[in-house]
């Protein structure tokens, strides 16, 4: 049982390889935390989408910029933070990928998938201006992990 915040942080370069690396790191942490295989898959995919977002849209593939990832454990939940060095964005300004007119768009589903796969999701603006994606998964023992695939 985790009684106080435990934190793991890693800073990655803005490279395509960082996407797989970030996913693998967090998948390993989630497995150790006791999540089911299905939840581990969802957490890994949410992190993947978050880092792809930072790589493509936040840092715009600028290799001089960094992508910071932090995994925090508090009683009952795991929180993942993905921070880029881009201009930031408002979640409300992102087009709804489920709208009929957007179904044939070839991009714009990453944020939706993060929301769908995690129990809580929000986008903050860091003091330096970049976007900070904050996603939470309830720990298995808390009994309230979102088992469905539907977004909130």
């Amino acid at each position, binding site marked *: 049982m985790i009684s106080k915040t435990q934190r793991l942080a890693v800073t990655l370069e803005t490279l395509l390889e960082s996407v797989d690396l970030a996913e693998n790191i967090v998948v390993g942490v989630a497995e150790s935390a006791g999540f089911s295989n299905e939840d581990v898959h969802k957490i890994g995919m949410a992190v993947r989408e978050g880092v792809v977002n930072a790589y493509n849209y936040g840092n715009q593939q600028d290799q001089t910029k960094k992508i910071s990832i932090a995994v925090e454990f508090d009683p009952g939940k795991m929180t993942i933070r993905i921070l880029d060095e881009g201009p930031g964005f408002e979640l409300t300004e992102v087009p709804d990928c489920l709208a009929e007119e957007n179904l*044939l768009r*070839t*991009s714009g*589903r*990453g944020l939706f998938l993060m929301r769908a796969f995690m129990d809580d999701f929000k986008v903050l603006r860091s003091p330096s201006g970049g976007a900070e994606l904050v996603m939470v998964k309830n720990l298995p023992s808390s009994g309230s992990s979102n088992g469905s695939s539907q*977004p909130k």
Partner: protein
Amino acid sequence: MAIVDFSGKITLGEGSAILRKMIRELVENGRRKILLDLGDVDYIDSSGIGEMVAAYTTVRNAQGELKLVHLTRRVHDILQITRLYTVFDVQGDEASALRSFRGAG
């Protein structure tokens, strides 16, 4: 007619690029009926989904048909929650998929 067996991951980078190149090659070489067998695809991310949408649009713009068969549960679930299950023509098995193609090509 072309049946494409894809396996592994369709994700940002190699998997998506291979799918894009393959569909483009088929269409440029006159194929208008393409059956994409995804039975061995166990992982698809939003980039992969985007590539499948691009494939669908490429084939449709060439007056062709792209159909999917043998979806794994994870690919099925992703298409469901993104509402793309209503866009793609998903067939239950290869035989019914082949019968469902219209006309020559």
